């Protein structure tokens, strides 16, 4: 029986793929054993980061239901939509939807070809967001150090799909793989806060601040915005809990890095008023 080389090649690729998919769930366990060298790391080496980015992009492609510029289309570099969407910036989402990367047909071939490609800009909704999850899962498996994957994944799991447990597990997995990262702790805290678990939210955020400062001290340039978000949210949390002193402390800390220290000052003033009010009532009497 003559078997063509193509069949052999495809079977091998297919086999590799099956093994990879069936093992990917087990890969996390392995990664515990060998830290950053997880299953995919062993197979692909550093090229896995490339794949991870590709898969992350695939999640975005799915989010847009296939209406997506290829690497040949001009504006592709500017596409960062998933992020804006993930942070609920509705305006930008609407703006972005109006954008049309295809432009006017360049020639008749292009024009006729439009019949055979998706030309309508849509976003997944009504639970269909779940379709992106496999790509995020794969991206996380391929590059456990890519923070975006966890934050975006957790956002959709939590906000759009109501899968709080899975979101928490995903963020924890991310934190496990990136123990120094305070952004993941921030997202985790938000999750706890949403489920009204103030104590855990506080703990996680405080840990986040600690991690951030440790890195900052070590001279590593970190994204100041994360610290800003952590401190502001801690401030609000303490404010709501009635710990006004703490609240002011956090907001002050945030002022040092915030792009809008004035705004924060207004909030600080408001809290200070609250702090003064109950004490001043007996004082004026």
């Amino acid at each position, binding site marked *: 029986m003559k*078997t063509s080389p193509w069949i052999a090649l*495809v079977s091998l690729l297919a086999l590799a793929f099956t093994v990879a998919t069936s093992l990917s769930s087990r890969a996390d366990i392995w990664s515990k054993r060998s830290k950053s060298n997880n299953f995919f790391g062993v197979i692909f080496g550093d090229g896995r980061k490339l794949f991870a980015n590709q898969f992350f992009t695939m999640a975005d492609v799915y989010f847009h239901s*296939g209406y997506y510029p290829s690497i040949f289309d001009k504006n592709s570099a500017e596409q960062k939509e998933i992020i804006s969407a993930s942070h609920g910036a509705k305006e930008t989402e609407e703006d972005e939807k109006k954008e049309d990367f295809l432009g006017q047909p360049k020639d008749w*071939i292009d024009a006729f070809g439009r*019949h*055979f490609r998706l030309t309508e800009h849509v976003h997944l909704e009504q639970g269909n967001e779940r*379709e992106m*999850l496999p790509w995020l899962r794969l991206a996380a498996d391929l590059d456990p150090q890519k923070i975006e994957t966890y934050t975006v994944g957790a956002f959709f799991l939590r906000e759009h799909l109501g899968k709080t447990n899975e979101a928490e597990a*995903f963020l924890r997995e991310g934190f496990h793989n990136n123990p120094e990262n305070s952004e993941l702790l921030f997202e985790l805290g938000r999750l706890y806060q949403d489920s009204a678990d103030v104590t855990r939210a506080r703990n996680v955020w405080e840990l986040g601040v600690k991690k951030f400062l440790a890195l900052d001290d070590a001279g590593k340039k970190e994204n100041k915005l994360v610290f800003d978000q952590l401190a502001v949210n801690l401030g609000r949390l303490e404010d709501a809990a009635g710990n006004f002193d703490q609240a002011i402390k956090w907001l002050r800390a945030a002022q040092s890095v915030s792009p809008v220290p004035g705004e924060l000052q207004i909030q600080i003033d408001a809290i200070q008023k609250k702090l003064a009010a109950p004490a001043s009532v007996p004082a004026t009497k």
Partner: protein
Amino acid sequence: MNKIVALAGVVIKELYRRKDFYVLFVLTALLTVAAGMVNFFNDDKIIRIVKDVCLMLIWVSALIIAIVTTARQIPAEREARTLFPLLAKPVSRGQVLAGKFLGCWLATGVALVVFYFFFAIITGSREHIWPWAVYFQAMWLQWFMLAIVIAMVLLGSLYFAAPSSTSTISFILVVGMLGLGSHLNTLALQQPEPMQSLLAGIYFAMPHLEWFDLRDFVVYDQKLIAWPAFALATVYAVVWTGIFLLLAWFGFRRKNLST
């Protein structure tokens, strides 16, 4: 016409008596089912990636079946020397080519039907929707794209020494056309002059196979493409198939078969 059908019948018999098709089908089925069984965040409604994987495998399998089957037809006839008793009968070389083409094309068509039926079953069992018209459009256009490919490979198989080199070159060429076809004009603009005209020339002169890929429509939103465009694309495929078959016939008609 009966002669052509008889010739095609031999090709089809060959395909289903060889193991290639079954291997590819079982592989596709296994991988699709495997992809469907992976647990992503405990969500058992996820389906698009399964569809994506399955259609991808269908495309690769169908291309392999079409290209490999076609590439070996004429060379095998010559190698086994069956071409001689065949051509010693009242059948013209053009009819032989036509029969080979028809056989390969029908055989791939049968394979496609099996593949898409499997696809419909798998996705239908999870989504409980059966957009047959969408599947039909996707399958039909894929089949007609394969007609172009088969005619092209048939032409190539007259000139390349070994079926394996014909297969490899055809595969690369087809994948290149599918991937770059719609972007060559954009790409051309980014190139310096001699290259620019060359790419633009290729863009306008090549068969645009990428039109026939409706996978996105099947995976994402199950919308139908406009029927007039669908019909035009079919005509386009027929024209290109005719061009390649004619070229093959010109080459084969006067070929010295003993060298």
